[in-house]
């Protein structure tokens, strides 16, 4: 099969976009893990669930700032939602950037309310009414919808890149799944990092988070393999070689960390944060690799 031809110019999406992809992924992934802990975890897992919802919202906060800063006309960010031509809504379901703008808005609401509920449960009583509403079935439904939106925010960024005519990006349709799986891995690493730095997190919770981290890393490894295969078949894998092999190394080390480094750390007395930090660096490196290599 002849290699795919690409004559598209690079869009110049760089550091702001990398920041958004990283923090947006962590936010969506943390919300999903928070929901899992809340709905299928034990009572002891609820502290970690609260941390997950708080982390989700805090990670989400810089996202709109990064996105707006990246625009050539930042004050026209509202044009993503409102059609300046006719005053109606700017909603184009077939445009991932349009759909993602709406998803980010919706997820922001769900993440914010869940954050308020979590801080109320943690002792900030001004938000108690919200915490009461979020208990029981209403809370479960709220968390499930929020998780759906969180997953979308985590994964649509990959679809956004794929829905283009750029080399690598448009050659690798599994990119949405790769970013989603990577978001889960990153969020699990982030929560492990936070759990390891707090004494009030149950040991069993930490063990289960570590297991989840390994499961998510396995999923990510499979998807990265599929992504690389699609890009190789298209004949554009060379774009991701050369100097980018350094980032590949960071990605691989971070993905291996939950299986190897955490055990080594326990055996040799290293700080338990080593594996989660490597995991987070891997998430960042993967996005940097995909974003920058295609545009080089």
């Amino acid at each position, binding site marked *: 099969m002849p290699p795919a031809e690409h004559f*598209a110019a690079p869009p110049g999406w760089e550091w702001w976009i990398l920041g958004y992809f990283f923090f947006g992924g962590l936010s969506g992934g943390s919300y999903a893990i928070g929901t*899992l802990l809340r709905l299928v975890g*034990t009572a002891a897992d609820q502290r970690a669930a609260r941390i997950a919802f708080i982390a989700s919202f805090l990670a989400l906060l810089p996202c709109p700032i990064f996105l707006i800063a990246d625009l050539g*006309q930042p004050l026209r960010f509202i044009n993503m939602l409102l059609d300046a*031509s006719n005053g109606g809504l700017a909603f184009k379901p077939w445009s991932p950037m349009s759909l993602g703008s709406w998803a980010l808005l919706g997820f922001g609401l769900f993440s914010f309310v869940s954050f308020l509920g979590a801080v109320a449960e943690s002792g900030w009583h001004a938000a108690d009414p919200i915490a009461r509403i979020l208990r029981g079935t209403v809370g479960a439904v709220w968390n499930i919808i929020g998780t759906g939106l969180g*997953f979308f925010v985590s994964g649509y960024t990959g679809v956004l890149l794929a*829905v283009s005519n750029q080399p690598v990006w448009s050659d690798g349709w599994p990119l949405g799944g790769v970013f989603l799986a990577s978001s889960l891995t990153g969020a699990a690493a982030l929560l492990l990092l936070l759990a390891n730095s707090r004494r009030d997190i149950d040991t069993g919770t930490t*063990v289960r988070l570590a297991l989840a981290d390994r499961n*998510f890393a396995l999923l990510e490894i499979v998807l990265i393999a599929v992504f690389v295969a699609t890009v190789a078949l298209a004949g554009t894998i060379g774009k991701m070689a050369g100097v980018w092999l350094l980032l590949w190394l960071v990605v691989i080390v971070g993905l291996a960390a939950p299986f190897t480094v955490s055990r080594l750390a326990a055996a040799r007395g290293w700080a338990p944060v080593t594996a989660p930090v490597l995991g987070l660096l891997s998430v960042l490196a993967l996005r940097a690799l995909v974003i920058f290599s295609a545009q080089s």
Partner: protein
Amino acid sequence: MGFFTDTSICIGCKACEVACKEWNQLEGNKPELLLDSFDNTGQLDAQNWRHVEFIEQIPDNNGVVMTPTPIAGGQAWLMMSDVCKHCQNASCLEVCPTNAIVRTEFDSVLIQQDVCNGCRDCISACPYGVIGFNEKTGTAHKCTLCYDRLQNGMQPACAKACPTESIKFGYLDDLQKAADQRLTALQTAGYKKAQLYGRDATVYGGLNAFFLLMDKPEVYKLPNAQNAVLPSRNNLAGYAGGFVTAVIGLVAGVLAFRSNRMNGEKSDAAR
């Protein structure tokens, strides 16, 4: 309405580039020595809405042509005035999240400068590398098909300036007839590689700015019909892949958080 650019009679004078810049008040980029034939423009971008490509197909053996052939034989200096294709199925228009990119009453594709917010998704999508980002205005720019001139009954500046009528402007039906006749004449004269690009719907549903080429489209940095694909081709597969991943991720999470629950419940009881 649209352009028919006959590259077989382009002489590389760049009058089209100059006329375009002058009418549209484009400052142009800082001059650079590109060492690429007679090309000092480089590419289409926010400051270059027309770009004359120089493609040298001259043998290296000290200029001695062992088997002299006409231009269709591949030993030639090809020139082409490149421009926005104003595609019928336009990738830029498809992805633009703000509806800043619209199709006009002249069937051209226009970026509304007062709506564009500079997200650059259109640059990512355009398969021809036509659109550029203007740092001063913070918006995306490309050929407008001289929208303002068309509104006032004038033809685009580049077509007006072209001394050899390599760039022809008019109604598509008329242009297509002229292109078909020219192609027949060239092929009859032995230029077997001569072909029309974008004349029919095989490339992005047809191009409102189509070309007569003297070699394969790839030689002119134009994707062939097989590679002329819309960004949306990855929409369904991308979202489906994400959905499946989300489901598997949830299952993986449930399996993890339901494991060793007894330990957790014991530790709850201990509290």
